[in-house]
């Protein structure tokens, strides 16, 4: 399907929804071509290729009494893009919307759309990567796998090394006249080796993800680093239950940023399901904590020129030197809270717009490298992996399974596992006393290494 055909499908869906009686409508079409492969030892495990297209339609309709305020909403989606199927879904959407309740805050944005003819080039797609050489990508996976296995005689097995390349086009249009599209790509490399000794077996991983193939890290370096991470976990044990400083690294610290951002989401705030709901303008973290969401970071894995409602993306400072400055809002949650959208509408084909982060990160501080922070910590825990779902956004209560490295006298002493770390997210952010100086992007959220002055560690 060419870009023009895709736009035509979107326009047809909107036009048909209006013809069936919708007051407003919008539609999003996503087309994606992808290839994924995994190798293990000297063998290909699987290669998977796909081309997917699907269309999502949202309609906003008036009820039987056209003079009543508010609109009624419905969302439909289909992977059958034939004209008849699109028309049928648009018609069903209108019928479905009429069965729901009217909502005074529902509706398209009132303007301020991005200019579809002058979208910024966010370096989301490199023309050179239009045709990905699958064999070359598989060879990358083999290079990572071989490097991981050659790193140490104790690396005897693996879950494999995996590569993926996806190119997609998003076309979004609405009945207010906006019609825009952009192309993007994501390439990844992932290696997950197993280390084995008398004490048992440990796995860990490392990865590289980028919008351009040429920006991916050297596969051998990814494999070696994954091996190092697995090796250092060998012989892990529990520690006695205690209170101690906890350091989060480039892998685990971004999860705190995501949790904070989810509690600053306008949809959580207006529902009252965020522990931050009443705290806009207040100090919620230590002065070293500044958290930013920016949808226009060049090459960012969360970047996009316009959001899921056609509004321009932008930079929003959520927490500024410890003070809660802004919610992340789409049009609906903005209206609920009496504010304007911050350009944070996320839109999956099968759902109505909702609040989402773009690229979200904690600003680097003056704490130096991870090693510097470890050296400055007399006794404590470096957390390298978190498991489980022990975070309650309503209360802020935090309790998760952890694995990592124990620190004694400013040095790594031994690996630990089967422990939990617990506290309250608000207290943890208020207790951040060191923020590292380097930012490493492993996804659309990032954080320098940081230290929380004290948490409860449960073990023996």
């Amino acid at each position, binding site marked *: 399907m060419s870009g023009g055909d895709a736009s035509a499908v979107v326009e047809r869906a909107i036009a048909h929804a209006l013809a069936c009686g919708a007051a407003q409508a919008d539609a999003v079409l996503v087309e994606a071509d992808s290839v994924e492969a995994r190798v293990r030892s000297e063998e290909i495990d699987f290669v998977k*290729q796909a081309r997917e297209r699907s269309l999502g339609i949202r309609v906003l309709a008036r009820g039987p009494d056209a003079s009543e305020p508010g609109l009624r909403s*419905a969302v439909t989606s289909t992977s059958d893009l034939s004209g008849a199927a699109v028309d049928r879904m648009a018609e069903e*959407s209108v019928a479905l919307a009429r*069965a729901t*309740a009217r909502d005074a805050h529902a509706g398209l944005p009132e303007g301020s759309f991005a200019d579809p003819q002058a979208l910024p080039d966010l370096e989301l797609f490199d023309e050179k990567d239009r045709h990905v050489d699958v064999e070359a990508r598989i060879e990358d996976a083999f290079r990572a796998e071989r490097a991981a296995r050659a790193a140490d005689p104790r690396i005897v097995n693996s*879950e494999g090394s995996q590569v993926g390349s996806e190119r997609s086009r998003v076309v979004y249009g609405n009945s207010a006249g906006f019609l825009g599209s952009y192309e993007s790509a994501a390439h990844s490399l992932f290696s997950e080796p197993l280390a084995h000794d008398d004490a048992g077996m440990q796995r860990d991983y490392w990865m590289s993800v980028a919008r351009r193939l040429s920006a991916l890290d050297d596969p051998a370096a990814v494999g070696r680093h994954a091996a190092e991470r697995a090796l250092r976990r060998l012989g892990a044990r529990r520690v006695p239950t205690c209170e101690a400083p906890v350091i989060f690294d480039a892998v685990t610290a971004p999860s705190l940023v995501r949790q904070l951002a989810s509690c600053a989401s306008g949809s959580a705030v207006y529902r009252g*399901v965020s522990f931050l709901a009443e705290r806009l303008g207040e100090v919620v973290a230590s002065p070293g904590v500044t958290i930013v969401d920016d949808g226009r970071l060049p090459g960012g894995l969360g970047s996009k020129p316009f959001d899921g409602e056609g509004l321009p993306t932008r930079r929003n400072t959520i927490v500024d030197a410890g003070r809660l400055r802004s919610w992340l809002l789409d049009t609906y949650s903005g209206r609920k809270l009496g504010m304007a959208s911050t350009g944070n509408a996320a839109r999956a084909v099968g759902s109505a717009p909702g609040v989402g982060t773009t690229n979200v990160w904690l600003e680097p501080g003056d704490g130096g490298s991870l090693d510097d922070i470890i050296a400055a910590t007399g006794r404590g825990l470096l957390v390298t992996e978190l498991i489980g779902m022990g975070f309650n956004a309503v209360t802020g209560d935090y309790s998760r*399974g952890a694995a990592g490295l124990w620190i004694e006298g400013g040095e790594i002493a031994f690996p630990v596992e089967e422990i939990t770390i617990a506290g309250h997210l608000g207290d943890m952010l208020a207790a951040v006393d060191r923020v590292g100086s380097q930012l490493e992007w492993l996804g659309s959220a990032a954080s320098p290494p940081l230290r929380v002055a004290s948490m409860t*560690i449960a*073990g023996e």
Partner: protein
Amino acid sequence: MSHRHDPSPAAPAAAPESADDEAAGARAVDFFRERFGLDEHSLEAVLGTALERQVEYADLFFEYSTQDAVVLEEGIVKSGDRHLEQGVGVRALAGERQGYAHSDEISTDSARLAAATARTIARGAGEQAPVPVRASRAAHDLYPLASVPTELPVERKVALLDAIDRYARALDPRVEQVMASLVCQYRRVLVVGSDGTLVGDVRPLVRLNCQVVAADGSKREVGYEGMGGRYEVERLLDPAAWKPLADEAVRTATLNLEAAPCPAGSFDVVLGPGWPGILLHEAIGHGLEGDFNRKKTSAFSDRIGERVAAPGVTVVDDGTLPGRRGSLNVDDEGTPTQYTTLIEDGVLVGYMQDRLNAKCMGASPTGNGRRESYAHLPMPRMTNTFMRSGQDDPEEILRSVERGIYAVSFGGGQVDITSGKFVFSASEAYEIENGRKGRPLKGATLIGNGPDVLLRVARIGNDLALDRGVGTCGKDGQSVPVGVGLPTLRIDGLTVGGTEG
């Protein structure tokens, strides 16, 4: 939460009438033949394309699914949605290597194109001629339906959520927010294999959720309850079904308003019956999936015949329970589901297998080859995983603990297959003091080591309950519905992660 649950694992409601005289398998085969022209002859031709160039086995997975949902919050149903998903996935197998391609168009042409791609990427040793395909009778008919869930008028679904909202708010003045949703799915699938397999299935799935936020001054807490399964949505419209759901959500939200912070350290833990069976799912189940054991990356690899649990502990995976969320007539490779014993009286006796891993390990498929949709490769997954009842009276189990934690319900869990470490978070828990249930605790996270946690089982209750039908399991980015079950269980010396030293 599951005290009121039917304790018998194989006790569905009286079998309802089928929407059609034919069983689900035959109806699916007819559907794809009539709607998309997929007859035996054209399917064999597609398989022939996939099998060229040194492929040992090929299969096709066709899917046509509809799903709808209504969601209520702030007292109104703000939106409804409806989705249509269709496509075909073609897989070619050569040794341990798999080639996979899929298309969102259902036709013999698109399937043939995908087949050509799949065989190219799978190329390996061996060459097979396709066996003629012939529709076979499915071994089970576990979810015959009197009505199609996605065809119930949306107005009736909206009315149900409105009733739940009014009822929950009237239960307690501290109820500040009610979020309820009803999701109905109707999937038709067709599996065609180069060994002659031709089998279909029609799979309904319904789920009702109720979440409540209770507030007391500036304190807020959340409570949740859900239910569902492969049955008619009409069953959920019955107040006798949904009222207990709202009761539970309100009860746990208000209970947690008064809950004390959980202590940290090592404790004897009593798990309540039902949903706490996710302990088995995380601690044991994933580690017994065939793929991890073929690759020897599981903490349970090469341990068949060894003691991995206390005497009396028997754990099974059973895909054949009528109407359950984790049940299937056939798995996504066309293998009939079965009752598979994983641990028998404390000894590891079996793994869960799909076709590929079974073949590589010289075992038989166990009907556990599942996939999220046509866009995904199948892999070994759990169905309904539970522990058989023991002899002990649940009240007596609680009395046997001097100081510990009684965990009745859980949010979610996760496991590291290789190290065996698992974690799961309690959403309803109590202190146990001198054999008595004490004050409620919040924020309890349990962490342990899969291969030895069941060795520390001290008591097994006689009250096995299955969960209410809410489980979703994620693995390698694929989500599938599952069930779990557990009798009341006492485990000694589990690490509990709280904030109180």
